[in-house]
């Protein structure tokens, strides 16, 4: 039973991290119908920025709390800057090109960013500073459920709530919803579609950055390659829930996180990634529109 709870919480933690990244995919897909292949790299850059900033501040002897806040903010700022730039450089010129072109360009961007970090920093695994202090709480289960698990879950919940409110009530959120429904119509009623797309990339990227910081301090190490696998898995989660749907992405992430956690716990830990990919293939075969997604009608 203890093992089960442990796996359950590890699944939920994974799920909430996937959710933070998956939201970026799903939002971008909802607005411009493009799989932003470089999104995983944005997440990786967020983790690296936090690592660099936190290391520098630690060396210069700043207090812990300020390090957490500054590193988190820096990660969000730089990740959204990268997200914004990637959109401007690699996707905006291709908005009217055939579908294959932006996809290839996105793959190119992803490879470029990976190698850029590899060359500018290092290919080694870096020990990520423990940003989240490890204090004892929830005595009876403390040895099963760590502080980081709790903090990740709470942070994710808060961020999700914030995002929902933003999309429901703010002007930007309304503009985003309008653009995702019909871009031409949105343009006709005076919405600056370019700015909405930029905003989507910025919001998605900062969510990914938060995910990056959380998972890096959870696992304790980062590497230039972490974005690739995490990106694919978050994408799987987004597809599982129905790409383009925000609640779908969250649901899909938790399903994927729990599946992975229980599969590695009860079957074998060697095939962790195989489970995720097999799940992806299975979903796409049986329900390409995902659990909460609308099936797309084809127009001739």
């Amino acid at each position, binding site marked *: 039973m203890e093992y089960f709870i442990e796996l359950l919480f590890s699944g939920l933690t994974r799920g909430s991290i996937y959710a933070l990244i998956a939201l970026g995919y799903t939002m971008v897909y909802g607005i411009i119908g493009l*799989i932003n292949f470089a999104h995983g790299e944005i997440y990786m850059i967020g983790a690296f920025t936090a690592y660099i900033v936190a290391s520098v501040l630690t060396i210069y002897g700043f207090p812990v709390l300020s390090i957490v806040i500054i590193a988190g903010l820096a990660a969000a700022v730089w990740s959204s800057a990268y997200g914004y*730039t990637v959109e401007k450089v690699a996707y905006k010129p291709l908005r009217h090109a055939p579908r294959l072109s932006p996809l*290839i360009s996105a793959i190119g*961007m992803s490879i*470029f960013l990976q190698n850029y970090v590899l*060359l500018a920093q290092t290919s080694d695994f870096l020990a990520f500073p423990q940003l989240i202090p490890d204090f004892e709480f929830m005595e009876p289960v403390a040895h099963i459920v760590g502080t980081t698990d709790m903090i990740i879950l709470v942070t994710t919940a808060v961020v999700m709530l914030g995002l929902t409110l933003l999309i429901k009530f703010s002007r930007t959120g309304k503009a985003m919803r309008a653009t995702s429904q019909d871009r031409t119509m949105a343009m006709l009623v005076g919405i600056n579609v370019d700015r909405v797309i930029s905003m989507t990339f910025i919001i998605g990227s900062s969510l990914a950055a938060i995910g990056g910081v959380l998972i890096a301090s959870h696992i304790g190490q980062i590497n230039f390659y972490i974005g690739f696998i995490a990106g694919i898995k978050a994408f799987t989660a987004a597809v599982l829930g129905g790409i383009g749907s925000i609640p779908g992405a969250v649901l899909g992430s938790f399903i994927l996180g729990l599946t992975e956690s229980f599969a590695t716990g009860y079957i074998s830990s060697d095939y962790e990634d*195989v489970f995720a990919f097999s799940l992806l*293939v299975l979903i796409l075969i049986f329900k390409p529109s995902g659990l909460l997604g609308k099936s797309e009608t084809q127009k001739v």
Partner: protein
Amino acid sequence: MTSFSELKKSLIVSLWFSFLTFPIMVIKADPIEKTVIWRWENLFFVAIGSFTLSMLGKIFFAQHERRRARRAADQAPARDPLIQVILREPRYLYPLAGAILIFALAFPFLFSTYQTNVMTTALMYVVLGLGLNIVVGVAGLLDLGYVAFYAVGAYSYALLNLHFDLGFWTVLPIGAILAAFFGILLGFPVLRLRGDYLAIVTLGFGEIIRLIMENWNEFSQGPSGISNIDRPGLFGLELSLDMAITYLYYLLIVMVLITIFVVNRLQDSRLGRAWIALREDEIACQAMGIDKTKTKLTAFALGATWAGMVGVFFAAKTTFINPASFTFLESAIILSIVVLGGMGSILGVVVGALVLILLPEYLRALSDYRMLAFGAILVTMMVFRPQGIISSVRRTYRYRKRGERERPAEEGDTQ
């Protein structure tokens, strides 16, 4: 040509990129040793570099616009690029092809064994590129897991050689058939998918194959791989290492020629035209009565067949394989070859493979930047020249009035 406002814009771009790359390019921190290295010179390089690139881009666009405006004013038809003229005219094409073939055949005698070995690798990528070109370039199905079929070929030779001591020539067709089988295996579930979803599923498939090879130790010997694979034999002759390399080189030349011949014939066949129709418009293609299932599956299977064969060659050449050779990056390299060369264009893919594989080899100092360049090439090609170095030619019939001088009957593809 360069106004003040353009200079200002480039300056802003330069400032933006300096800000963007600041933490990752400038700071290198080590919390364990408690050292921070500030690399301010990188900031300077980024600023200068992005400023120059931005200015060059602006000049390029300005010229492009002016040329287009002039052409529109003259009403003159766009002239075909030289390469298309050469490809079209047999009297230029045949001597040129002959010269290249003679050079290729003489290569091992002119250069060292090392050069021959490098060239063999490049030729393998030519075949891989041509194989992927069937799937991506001709049929328009973005396959990101192409390397899985390459792995299937390589592992079938390695394993059959290890356990049953089967030779190269026996396994070559077996590897091809196994890869084709896997192609169909992948093709079946993804028949309903298109575009982006297809790309992701194929990527997932490629990773599944690699992860299984890495973890299923009893079957594939895991990450340590399989070594001491036999080289191909020549009628039972014992070959020295140098001779084996030369022999493999000639085999690959033959392989490339066969591939070019087959792919060229395929493109003009009924099946090839069905693939092109599928690429252009899937729904219209179905409405024309083309069997979509068969068309897609044959594209996957035929593309995979070439990868399987090259996989066998790869295992025979290196005599050692492990899962690290079959990562997603390998798929990305092959995809870059197809995209850089020109999707759907045979000559383009050949040129693309030679450029992308030989260039980093000869510019050793830059080989660290190889993957960075691959990424940048994919993006720039898509933005500035989506048709690649040598675009594929679409055959069009053009009506000529009597007395009019002979005009080209074909036009550059404008997809």
